[in-house]
């Protein structure tokens, strides 16, 4: 418990990866996707990881998000060692502590914008916090979209809603996987700027993976992923 409280303090890392490796396959088909990655991000920090496709950055993100286990090394989130948790506990941790913003829209196609948020409350087995939803939608300037389906939104609007939903559960960590891949430059910039701004305002730790170096300009730190090795740029 003590570790979790400390993690809330500024400059305490929210997410750390130490000596993380990931190997796929075996024998002569063996591929080292990650080769001893050390990484950490603290509250209020917006960190970018850039690299070409196939460099291992998605593997890095899935391991950071507890979606798969590293071959070796330790991943800890808010002081909890992900490797030591059961699948069920890891699922719970993802739900409570991580907000995801994905490349393909991660909105549920058959839920209206407001219901995307209500779903979070339903999964959390609590009453729908309507006023919180309205507040968040207003602060992101998307209140007018509340009763629209994702298919009726532009790409930029969709990512704003996705960012809003990632924040709705008040997570410690935000993982963004190519959040601008489906957007034109102007909208892409706007989305990254929003993400950076909210990260600082709300004291989140944000990791954005992108292949587009221009998107990294608002980051506090930029890492480069190349052939499974991570280095500060």
């Amino acid at each position, binding site marked *: 418990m003590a570790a979790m409280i400390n993690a809330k303090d500024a400059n305490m890392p929210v997410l750390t990866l130490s000596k993380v490796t990931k190997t796929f396959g075996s024998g002569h088909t063996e591929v080292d*996707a990650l080769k001893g990655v050390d990484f950490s991000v603290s509250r209020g920090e917006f960190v970018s990881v850039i690299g070409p*496709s*196939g460099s*291992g*950055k*998605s*593997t890095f*993100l*899935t391991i950071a*998000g507890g*979606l*798969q286990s590293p071959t070796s090394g330790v991943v800890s989130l808010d002081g909890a060692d992900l490797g030591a948790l059961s699948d*069920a506990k890891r*699922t*719970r*941790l*993802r*739900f*409570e502590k*991580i907000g*995801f913003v*994905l*490349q*393909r829209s*991660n909105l*549920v*196609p*058959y*839920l209206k914008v407001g*219901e995307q948020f*209500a*779903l979070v409350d*339903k*999964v959390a087995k609590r009453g729908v916090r309507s006023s919180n939803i309205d507040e968040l939608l207003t602060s992101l300037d998307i209140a007018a979209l509340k009763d629209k*389906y994702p298919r009726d939104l532009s790409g930029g609007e969709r990512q704003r809603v996705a960012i809003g939903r990632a924040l709705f559960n008040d997570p410690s960590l935000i993982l963004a*996987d*190519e959040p601008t891949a489906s957007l034109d430059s102007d909208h892409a910039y706007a989305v990254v700027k929003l993400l950076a701004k909210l990260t600082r305002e709300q004291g989140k730790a944000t990791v954005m*993976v992108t292949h587009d170096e221009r998107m990294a300009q608002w980051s506090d730190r930029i890492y480069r992923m190349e052939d499974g090795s991570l280095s500060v740029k």
Partner: protein
Amino acid sequence: MFLALKEMRYSKWRYALVMGVIFLVSYMVFMMSGLATGLSSGHKKAIDDWNASSVVLTEDANKVFGASQLTRGDLDRVSTASSSDKSGVGLYQGSVTKGSTKENISLFGSDASAFTTPAVTQGTNYSGKYDITISQNLVDEGFAIGDTVRIGNLDHDLTITGIFKSTTYSVVPVIYTSLDTWTSIKYGTQPFNEDASKPLNAVVIRGTSGVTIDNSTATRQSATAERTGSTAKLQKLDMATFVNNVPGVSAEALTFNGMIGLLVVITAAIVGIFMYVITLQKTAIFGVMKAEGVRTGFIARSVVAQSFVVGVASVAIAYLLAWLSSLAFPAAMPFVADLGKWALYGVLLVVVTVVGGLFSVRTVARVDPITAMGEE
């Protein structure tokens, strides 16, 4: 439930299609059940009308009403709590003629005062030697109180004195008359030495207390034994057994139950396939939801809840429409809306739709959240 209902609202047509199919199958199940009950009732309604508890036939009749031949004397071998709790009944199947009108009928011989004799709703019960009463459905064919008719080989006019409520046996209308008249109709002028040797087809019993059969005087011990002058062994049957052996009843029930069973299995398969295909199309978003920390159970429950909602709604509509249809059917149609039985089939259909939905749970469980991220 949240996801289940929201998705059904979003993909109205898709779910309307699934529901339409389940509705049609359920409607067909109810219709078949109605026809099965109707037909079986047509075969044996006159027997149900007795409200009897058991029937005594000769053992060598192999439980078949018409094949059983005992005598009025055998009535004494059957003891009941009160003598009015047993009634000797005779059956004759043939036709009734009035002028040029001829109808197939089942004629029962039964003492005017016996409990097996139906109460008249119009006119009076039979009392004279050549009196008969007819069921209401014969009135619809042009017969009326006061009419004189001919039945079988009897060389005498018969007079209709009363009408009782519609009923059938062997899917034809029913006529009742006294045992004596029935004997004359069925056996013509052949002489019987005494009343006790006059024939009967069955002894019908109401109530269950104090019912015993005396087989000590039975001299006919095997089917190959001499018939003349021998006394048959008696056998008491409960009504379910007796009715099941009414010609046609059990064969029809088997046919219809087979069809209904098949439809229920088909429903499970249809729902299973539909839900599986729909689930497959949603694996991408399920992967995203799982990545975000939504439990597999939450998603699986929504899939199962969906098939439950789909099942309940379509079966309920089918139930209602089947009942409304039954009101519109002509009286001649052998159809009985047995709402209790339908409710049972309805529950069964809902259960199989849920089972169909359960097939997709495995698919949901196998979606890997890692698919939500990256293209590497």
